[in-house]
């Protein structure tokens, strides 16, 4: 019987366990953030930035008009009436535009909602800047009450020429439980 390099085995095990732990960590510290970065960069799922746009456009491009469609979807179990006040807007790239969505909570108790934006075509996502949006924060609403929720946006001057229609969809989720169960009154 020979003992072939007990130390070599220990060495191999340590290295491989390190690889395994590294790969586990890789999922959390690389894949998740990397996916978010890629989503922002490539507009995967039409995700837009979660933060207010603060730059200023060089001017207004009067030469073309972009059609903006607004779409609202309630996620399952979300009883609010929720929708855009106007469904279609024609805007010039570079200009600042305002609109509102209306929301009504029909239940007796207060609730908290989160609206998730998604832009289509996804390629347009990086050119759609929101300077103010109800989707940046969770939206509390008292029982049986309504609210107007403002949205202010700019379409980038650099929007590719072949995109003439942009659809902005909001899906509204009930996050009352996530927000701690108690709506902020």
């Amino acid at each position, binding site marked *: *019987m*020979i003992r*072939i*390099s007990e130390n*070599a*085995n220990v060495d*191999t*095990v340590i290295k*491989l*366990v390190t*690889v*395994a*732990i*590294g*790969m*586990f960590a*890789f*999922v*959390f510290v690389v*894949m*998740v953030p990397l*996916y978010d970065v890629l*989503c922002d960069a*490539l*507009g*995967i*799922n039409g*995700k837009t930035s*979660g933060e207010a746009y603060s730059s200023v456009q060089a001017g207004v491009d009067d030469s073309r008009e972009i059609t903006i469609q607004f779409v609202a979807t309630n*996620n399952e179990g979300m009883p609010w009436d929720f929708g855009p006040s106007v469904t279609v807007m024609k805007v010039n790239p570079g200009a600042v535009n305002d609109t509102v969505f209306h929301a009504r909570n029909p239940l007796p108790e207060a609730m908290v909602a*989160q609206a*998730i934006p998604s832009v289509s075509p*996804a*390629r347009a996502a990086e050119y759609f800047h929101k300077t103010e949006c109800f989707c940046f924060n969770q939206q509390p609403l008292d029982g049986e009450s309504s609210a107007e929720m403002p949205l202010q946006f700019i379409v980038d001057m650099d929007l590719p020429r072949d995109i003439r229609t942009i659809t902005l969809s909001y*899906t509204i*989720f*009930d*996050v009352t439980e*996530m927000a701690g169960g108690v709506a902020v009154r």
Partner: protein
Amino acid sequence: MGDHHHGPAKGITRWLFTTNHKDIGTMYLWFSFAMFILGGAFAMIIRAELFQPGMQLVEPAFFNQMTTLHGLVMVFGAIMPSFVGLANWMIPLMIGAPDMALPRMNNWSFWILPPTFLMLASTLFMEGGAPAFGWTFYAPLSTTYAPPSVTLFIFSVHVLGLSSIMGSINIIATVMNMRAPGMTYMKMPLFVWTWLITAFLLVAVMPVLAGAVTMMLMDIHFGTSFFSAAGGGDPVLFQHIFWFFGHPEVYIIILPAFGVVSQIIPAFSRKPLFGYDSMVYATAAIAFLSFIVWAHHMYTVGMPVAGELFFMYATMLIAVPTGVKVFNWISTMWRGSLTFETPMLFSIGFLILFTIGGFTGLMLSIAPADFQYHDSYFVVAHFHYVMVAGAVFSMTAAIYYWLPKWCGRMYNEAMGKTHFWISFVGFNLAFFPQHFVGLAGMPRRIPDYALQFADFNMMSSIGAFIYGASQILFLYNVIATIVSGKPTSDEKVWDGAEGLEWTVATPAPYHTFETPPRIDPAHAHS
């Protein structure tokens, strides 16, 4: 080191506490066969329900539990452990090592499996039923909308992953450190090579799967939102992480099968394996490519067109090394001196059917066409050609090939050949028509279907029953061999077989290669 010289302990403790690679290999093989029967029973329920249109035997919710458990049990319980068992038995014998490098860990990695599968199967009797979200368990069906049993499922996946990682570490350590003097890497039998590469894949991707289910656990119980849009997450992220594990997983299943076939075809062609070096490089190339093609499972999820193109091109490239392998096997047979014993029949069956599965894989890689194929029965047919005809056929070939060496008795050749022909016909009858119904528009994972799919589904069910029944013959043949097969003491059971495993006594003694064998430096790989 006296304790290495006596035989096995008596009774149950032999199996519970054994650190012997042959005992552990045997347990892995029996366990995986039991799981194969269990997963097969689920498949029979699926095919019985799909025998004709309308709901007859089970409810839709239960049907989904069956498809889910069938997939999980077959992939994680039958195919993967069977190849680990084969690795346990054969790798030390093939490289001239006395045992695996880490025998106690070896015992562990096996014994955590049976309780885990017991737990997974017990979810069938839980309130809300077993997991019913498919073996790919896409969020949010597997998180927000999952039955309570999902927590047990997550725990099971963690343990299975741990077992696989331990088994892989053991294999890598054995291959790297325990080779007999003179057994250089490029002299190792191809089965050892494919397993070495597989083990590296496992160590790299099982933790990714663990990460995915950990995120699910956190989403379900600790209020995070990795996969829920409401909290800023994304269900599509789950699919990316899952398939980052899942695609290499497919090769984890098939690479050891390549290794087996690369041992058997030369033996019955009486001619050395053609293109050994290119086989090794092709295996490595497939392993590398498997990390950059995952999103071809997600062409319809809404990716930017640049992403679709990248994943399509990368996926198509896999056809090159895979083709090299097929060409090499056929060249090995070319101008050989062929005989067709059962292991060779199953290997040729593998070669034909795996190649068909490869062709449909190439078709599926074409993104625009995949918009029609995706999630249809065409996909089901494709992956059963690769998984069953690939992995299971080659595993069956391996059992027939090495069984005489293991137990010192010959199996019944006529019964083995009968088993092959029934399997081959049953398999094709079961899965070939699924290409047709898939192309004609039948989605996968449905418990009932429109009338135009009826005839082919009935054929498919009959084929599945035949294939299922043929496994009973297999079980009988193996048991009959062990109990009362014709004894043989030839060291070389097959006249054309090469390799160190054929230099030890038959049946293989409890301890082998306690002194390392001498490797003839002139002799190339086996």
